[in-house]
């Protein structure tokens, strides 16, 4: 932006503010990286080295912590459970939300307003606030200590926001397209399945990416619903590992680093989808 405001000034005066801009931005880049780099440094040390000089360069790097974590069956069980929960939750959210969003965006019927209001009510009841009621209800239904319980709760609390996002996308698709499809003999279902969904693919992947992040990172729902350690998810297992192996901080650091790797890889691939999902409505305003 600096170029816009100062293009008539001399090069010196033009470049100085830009220099400060980069200086400040770089400072924040450093702040973002400090905790991450310190974690990785720590994970590459022995237990003793971590205690005596935790934040120096890990020379020579000790890979034992990583092999130790990776050779534990527990880590792979956690990874598998997290993957199962994430994939089922995400497919469920995308499927259920696109159905509901389509009807709410594109069809007219009695009771549409109240149903829409009911479904968006969930925005005011985030899971962190509703967790105790949810736990009591699931205990009564016998869905504790069951990954299905975690999945159903995650889906239910993701509905409102994602229906709203998808409804926005669906409403932006021209009415003429729908009219033309109906004149050609399409049913509402045909239109939804053959025309709307393919057109909405970017929106669907945005919703999917956001749901994946939320499900993958969720601690609270598995924490209250799951006791059995064979059903723990990665965040829950990480938290338990940290309190269990509190003495061996280097090992904890390796465990945490490894549990962050999937998130980072996913982010590098899906940044565009996550960003477009989050900014979907902000752009409309």
């Amino acid at each position, binding site marked *: 932006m600096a170029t816009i405001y100062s293009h008539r000034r001399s090069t010196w005066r033009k470049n100085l503010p830009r220099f400060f801009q980069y200086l400040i931005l770089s400072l924040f880049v450093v702040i973002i990286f400090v905790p991450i780099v*310190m974690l990785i440094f720590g994970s590459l040390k022995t237990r003793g080295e971590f205690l005596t000089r935790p934040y120096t360069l890990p020379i020579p790097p000790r890979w034992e912590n990583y092999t130790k974590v990776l050779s534990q069956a527990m880590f792979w069980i956690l990874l598998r459970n997290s993957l199962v929960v994430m994939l089922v939750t995400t497919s469920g959210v995308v499927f259920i939300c696109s159905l509901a969003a*389509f009807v709410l965006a594109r*069809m007219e019927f009695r009771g549409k307003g109240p149903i829409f209001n009911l479904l968006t009510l969930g925005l005011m009841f985030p899971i962190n606030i509703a967790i*105790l009621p949810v736990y009591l209800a699931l205990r009564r239904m016998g869905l504790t200590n069951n990954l299905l319980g975690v999945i159903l709760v995650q889906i239910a609390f993701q509905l409102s926001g994602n229906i709203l996002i998808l409804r926005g996308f669906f409403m932006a698709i021209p009415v003429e397209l729908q009219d033309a499809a109906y004149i050609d003999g399409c*049913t509402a279902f045909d239109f939804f399945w053959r025309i709307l969904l393919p057109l909405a693919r970017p929106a669907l992947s945005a919703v999917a990416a956001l749901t994946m992040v939320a499900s993958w990172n969720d601690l609270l729902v598995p924490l209250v619903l799951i006791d059995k350690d064979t059903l723990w998810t990665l965040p829950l297992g990480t938290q338990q590992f940290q309190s269990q192996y509190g003495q061996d901080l280097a090992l904890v650091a390796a465990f945490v680093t490894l549990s962050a790797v999937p998130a980072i890889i996913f982010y590098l691939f899906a940044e565009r989808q996550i*960003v477009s999902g989050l900014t979907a409505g902000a752009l*409309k305003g």
Partner: protein
Amino acid sequence: METASASEGVLDSSRQARFPRRVQDNLTIVLFLLPALVLFLVFVVYPILQSLYYSLFNWKGFGPAVDFVGLDNFKRILTDRIFMKAVGNGLLIVVLSLTIQLPLSLALALMVGRDLPGRAFFRTIFFMPYVFSEVITAIMWLFLYNPDPERGFINAVLILIPGVKPQPWLGSPTQVMGCLFVVLTWKYFGLHMLLYMAGLQNIPQEIEEAARIDGANRRQLIKYITLPLLGSTIRTSVYLSVLGSLQVFALVWIMTLGGPVNASEVMATYMYRFGFVRFWLGYGSAVAIVMLLISLAFSVSYQRLVRQPDYLSGM
């Protein structure tokens, strides 16, 4: 009769085409809404109504709830010093977020602007902590906040400044909230910056150019053109920030358990402590209802007073 039957024939043929269509449409509406409605009613609405009932009992979770105490749980919550502390800490996070975190995010978004070389790089880096789980974030920062300067990076850097002593950080009742706020900012400022960057991208460049040609300097441009046009983005970001601040849980629970001596208690940790650690389920239910009412009151009044945020993601 004759004419009626004649026209009926015409109607019939068109009705035959339309009738299955209507049925089909209604079927589509019902079947498409059903999964969402069932899940929502069973896993969101029903639990809340059930807790509304339990909140009227003194119930420790064993056997049925029989010890009816009316509104006693609520009276007790609202007079509990620790709950008030938790509400106060929630408000503190709200105030700090609105006065420090959001302006910082906005300033950085303005700095990156629409065309600074390296814009995408900065966005990728600043937004990255958002995808880390709160568990990972909390453990990373626990290492940094270690009060022993031999072990904690922050104190190690601090004592390089002459005359500065190592600080207790999370161990100090007066510093703990500030420390947690730094972590919250580290994790979430990228989200708000992202929203502002998207909002800026949406402001027509011609408007800014016109103002500049009319002689507006940079400060005036931001004050009179950019910020007003960014209004809806800012309102969205404020809404998300407040709602997020009211429900902070995992970061606080892992880093401090609400301590030392309840100094960093927030509403969600308070509920967790009474509901899941002490297993006072009736009392915990009442806490959940109070939190829901606070969240509801904020959402409704914000929508009335400010406006309906058209952007709301499921966070």
